[in-house]
Structure formats: structure tokens, C-alpha cells
């Protein structure tokens, strides 16, 4: 029952490699329009939110969701991270997790 699946951390640049997969994105909320949000995660990502989402513009957010073929994200879970998120750090972590995949990602 060990849950051997990961939700890789990605930025905008990695979207195309993860179509149809679950991913984690940390970014800044640029714009909110109803159930649609624009997130900056080293590039602009469009996200379709679920009902439970409570985001605020200019705050950090962690999204977990599925990458659509048009490279938007269908959000399954979102957490407002407030102010003070170090986005450079978050982007660096994305690079590190891709560089040392055996520590972070189950491949398949």
C-alpha cells in the first residue's frame, strides 16, 4: 500500500514534458478570473481551478493538478502560500529535482 507515485515539481518550461500527468507547481498568482487563474512559475501558466480553491492575487500558490494538452493545468488541489515565497528558490528546487530524479520522481 506504499504509495509509489510522485507529483513532480515543475515550472512553465517543463509543462510540455508532462502532458496528462499530475504535477506540482509553485508560483505567483498574477490574475484571477472566476475559476481561471494565471500563475507565474518562471513563465505564465493558465490554471483551471476547482471549487475549493481560495487564492488571492499576488500571493504565492502551490497547485497540484493535471497538465492538459494545451499546457493549461486542471487543478485538483491548491494551497495559498501567502506572501514571502522565494520564487527563485522554488525554481531552483525544480531544477534540482530534475537533475537528481532518483531522489524525487518515480519514472513511468
Amino acid at each position, binding site marked *: *500500500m*506504499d*504509495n*509509489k*507515485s*510522485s*507529483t*513532480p*515539481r515543475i515550472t512553465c518550461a517543463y509543462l510540455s514534458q508532462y502532458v496528462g500527468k499530475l504535477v*506540482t507547481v*509553485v508560483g505567483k498568482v498574477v490574475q484571477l478570473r472566476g475559476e481561471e487563474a494565471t500563475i507565474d512559475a*518562471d513563465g505564465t501558466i493558465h490554471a483551471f481551478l476547482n471549487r475549493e480553491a481560495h487564492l488571492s492575487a499576488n500571493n*504565492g500558490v*502551490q497547485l497540484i493538478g493535471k497538465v492538459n494538452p494545451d499546457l493549461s493545468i486542471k487543478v485538483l*488541489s491548491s*494551497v495559498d*502560500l*501567502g506572501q*514571502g*515565497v*522565494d520564487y*527563485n*528558490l*522554488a*525554481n*531552483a*528546487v*525544480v*531544477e*534540482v*529535482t530534475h*537533475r*537528481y530524479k*532518483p*531522489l*524525487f*520522481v*518515480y519514472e513511468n
Partner: protein
Amino acid sequence: MAGYGGYGGGDGGGFMSGSQQGGSQAGGSKYADESLRPVTIKQLLDWEETFPGAELAIDGHPVTQVTIVGQVRSVKPQPTNITYRIDDGTGAIDVKKWVDSEAQGGEDGGSGAGAIAPDAFVRVWGRLKILGGKKHISANFIRQIEDFNEVNYHLLEATYVHLFFTKGAPGSGGAKQEGGGGDNMFVDQGYGAGGGDVAMGGAGPGGGNSAMQARLATCSRNAQIMCNFINNSPGGTEGVNLHVIAQGTRMSVRDITNAADELLGQGIIYTTQDDETWAILDY
């Protein structure tokens, strides 16, 4: 795991000799072998118990206590413990926090659950336990994370410790003056890579050296030592022979051959007069 068998099980005190290279001198003292290692959940799930009761070892090094950071997916209060399912994006694992029946019920009863709600980020300290083939962490302590950056910090720290054990301490040993550079490389990649693919070796004509250094940072310690030695030798395009390297670095011929294969694979060096003479491939 792979490195585990190499330590042999015969030494006294029931502890592996391997743990003593971590700097402790006390033979057989369990207390001296205590460690607290930051890990990802995937590292814990990937570990296979080689025999029942085997000590947890990651990257060939024994680990007693671990710390993880993740998000709470579910909370199940039970009579004797509270079971949290923790997910850090690399995997998910159950964490059991035993309820202290001595303490007054109000604080840690199932109802309060320490006020840790689903979706909260938490840091956990504890030990990996296996029960009926299923892994869980028996937590000494769980606390909610206030600053989200701690989540990212933890992932970098786990990577750092992994690299420390697999590639050696940054700038340690006979790594000559470039050793310090090795230290910086990790940080550089971490922070610089946000902008593009420093890490992939964006080998522009101008950035040849730094691109090489970035690639070198992914190599084993032997490869780094060898590369630095060649770099500091007057061989130039003639290259430096295997035996000169062996003498200069005090590495075995076999280690050098392996390191050379690695460096050749990375395109950092090339062979010159014969198969046992190498020079740095400069842009």
C-alpha cells in the same frame, strides 16, 4: 542496498562498521551512531529491507532517525496514535504519532489532533518502521510549517546530504584549489539554473569553462580529482599519462580508468597519444 553488503555484518556491538567512518570513534555504542538525516519520502520507499530487522541505510550509510517535510493528506485519529498520511510530492507515507496517555486528554486527544489539518505542511522527525511489510514513520515530533520556504529548503538539504554521501564533502580531501569550486557548483546550479540550463552545460563558446565545471560537478569525486589534476598539469594538448596521474593523485590505476571513462562520457577530456593519456577538452 548495494552498498549495504559491503559493510559486512560481523563487527561487535551489532552495529555496522560503516557507520564509524562518519567520524564517531566509539565502538559498538549505539548512542554514538545516532543520526538525523533529511530525506525525501521516495528515498524511504525505495529502501528495501535486505533481511528482517535490517538497519535503514540510504546511499550505503546507516540512518537512524529521519526528518521529512510534506503535506498532510489525511488524519486518522486512533486509540493509541494519530496516523497522518504525508505526501511530499515524491511519494506518500503514513506517519504515526503516539498519543501520550499520561498527558492530559484535552491536548492530544483525537479530537484536537494537535490542530494539524489536511493540506497543512508539516515537518516530521522520527524513525522508519516496517510493520507487516508496510513502511511507516513512528514520529517523535510533528510540527506545522509556518514558512513555506522551509519545504523547498528541506528538498535542497536532502539533496545536499545525498550528494555528500555519494560524492564526498564539498572541497574536502586532496581536491586542490578547485575543490572549493566544487562547493560553489552546487549552489550555482541551484540558484543559477532557474534562468535556464546552466546545469545542462549550455556550452556556449564563451562559457566553456563554467559549463565544464557544471558538468564536472555531477561526476564522482575521483573524476573531479583527476580532472583537476590534469587541469593543473603542464601537459597541454599533449595530455597527461595514466601513470603520471596515478603518481600525482595517489589513485589506483583502476580508479583512474573508471574516472577517465566517466570524464570521456561527459566530454570533459579526450584521449591523445594513446588510450591512457588524456587532455582537457577546452572550448
